[in-house]
């Protein structure tokens, strides 16, 4: 008799579970008055490990600070005013399209580095993007691959490939005009440039430019367009910094570590 009750009770519990699963009304959290206002200090221990900040290797701090000031000055007194003019003569759509065009050109870099890291599915997706955007997307100015087919870009560069195989970042180095970098990523510019179609050296495939002044001109347009797209982000970062150089340095190293982890 008792057993029957137990079974009945269990059955109701199970049924209740299922109904609970399907009922969708979100509970409104009740207001509970709490007298102890301050967080107890043991909350700290819970977060201590999670919030641990890694020291960045920085033997070139002196140079890096000077170069950060130079880059920031270049932004403030050169790129920003030039960008003002650029924004007048272009519409947002045009700027996004130019950004798309350059991104499409860097397909070989992303393809090679995805393959080197064994990410074949991403390499395949990138290939699809390149084929679609180069043809239907009018030489890459538009991105129908993402908008119509849901193909996503998977940016990988040689620095990430090295990081993937366990190569450390090395000392932080700020590069003129380019900004924060580190030894590993700076060296990686060369292999990535070797597969870039924006170059003037003889290649087995067509390149965008034939001479070095041409290369500089194209690179300038690329940089200017980049400034126009990311100006807000940079200004926000500047506002949040108590000291610009170490802030930029840590943001860069954190971002790279995350990119490599993924």
């Amino acid at each position: 008799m008792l057993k029957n009750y137990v079974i009945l009770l269990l059955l109701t519990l199970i049924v209740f579970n299922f109904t609970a699963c399907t009922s969708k009304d979100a509970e409104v959290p009740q207001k509970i008055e709490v007298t102890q206002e301050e967080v107890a200090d043991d909350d700290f221990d819970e977060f201590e490990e999670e919030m641990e900040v890694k020291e960045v290797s920085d033997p070139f701090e002196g140079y890096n600070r000077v170069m950060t000031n130079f880059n920031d000055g270049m932004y403030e007194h050169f790129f920003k005013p030039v960008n003002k003019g650029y924004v007048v003569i272009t519409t947002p759509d045009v700027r996004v399209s130019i950004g798309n065009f350059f991104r499409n050109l860097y397909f070989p870099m992303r393809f090679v580095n995805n393959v080197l890291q064994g990410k074949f599915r991403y390499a395949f997706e990138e290939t699809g993007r390149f084929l679609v955007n180069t043809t239907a997307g009018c030489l890459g100015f538009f991105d129908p691959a993402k908008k119509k087919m849901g193909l996503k870009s998977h940016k990988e560069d040689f620095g990430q490939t090295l990081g993937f195989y366990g190569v450390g970042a090395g000392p932080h180095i700020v590069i003129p005009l380019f900004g924060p970098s580190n030894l590993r990523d700076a060296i990686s510019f060369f292999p990535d440039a070797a597969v870039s179609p924006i170059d003037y050296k003889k290649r087995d495939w067509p390149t965008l430019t034939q001479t070095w002044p041409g290369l500089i001109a194209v690179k300038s347009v690329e940089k200017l367009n980049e400034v126009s797209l990311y100006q807000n982000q940079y200004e926000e970062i500047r506002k949040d910094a108590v000291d610009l150089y170490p802030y930029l340095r840590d943001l860069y190293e954190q971002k790279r570590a995350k990119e490599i982890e993924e």
Partner: protein
Amino acid sequence: MMFKRVFIKILLVISILGFSNNVLANEQDNLKAHFLEELSDIIKIIDNKQFTKDERNTKIVNELTPMFDFKLMAKLSLGKKKWMSLSKEAQVEFVTLYVERMKNSYSSKIDSYEDEEVKITDIKRKKNRISLETEIATAEKNLKVVYKFYKPKKRKNDKDVWLIYDVEIIGISILKADKAQFKEFLRTKTIEALMEALSKQKTT
């Protein structure tokens, strides 16, 4: 007889498993629903052209405040050792400045918002932590923003059950970034200088 006992045991296990699963899943669903609700409220405020910029930003910050544990963020940004070394007054002052700065920083980011679409891509739970992954679709590309929630042991006054203690933007934790820069600053300068720098930031 034997069979019945086994049957009861199985039922018992199923019901317990099912029940605990439900509680966990529901909390996540609730948080997600709550987040989307807040989001749509904020978008409504942004879309309402009657508000001045300041009115709008205050409204949004007020809307967000119950979701964030700004106080905890302030403490974590200094790290335990430094925080404990401060006097009670300095602690209060620092928290006030930090919270003010966070709010300003948010407001200024809202100003650059332009009809971007936000969608939740994933929600993950690990004990008393939930990370809510979202994607902001801008014209140029998608920005990944992760909101990290924790559940305080005791519910806090005027606060939600789950509170945001960190936001990760394209892989950068804003809290870690602050912790790193404050640590660097304090290596050569005093806490008073840091607080002065923070209060100056507020006005710019």
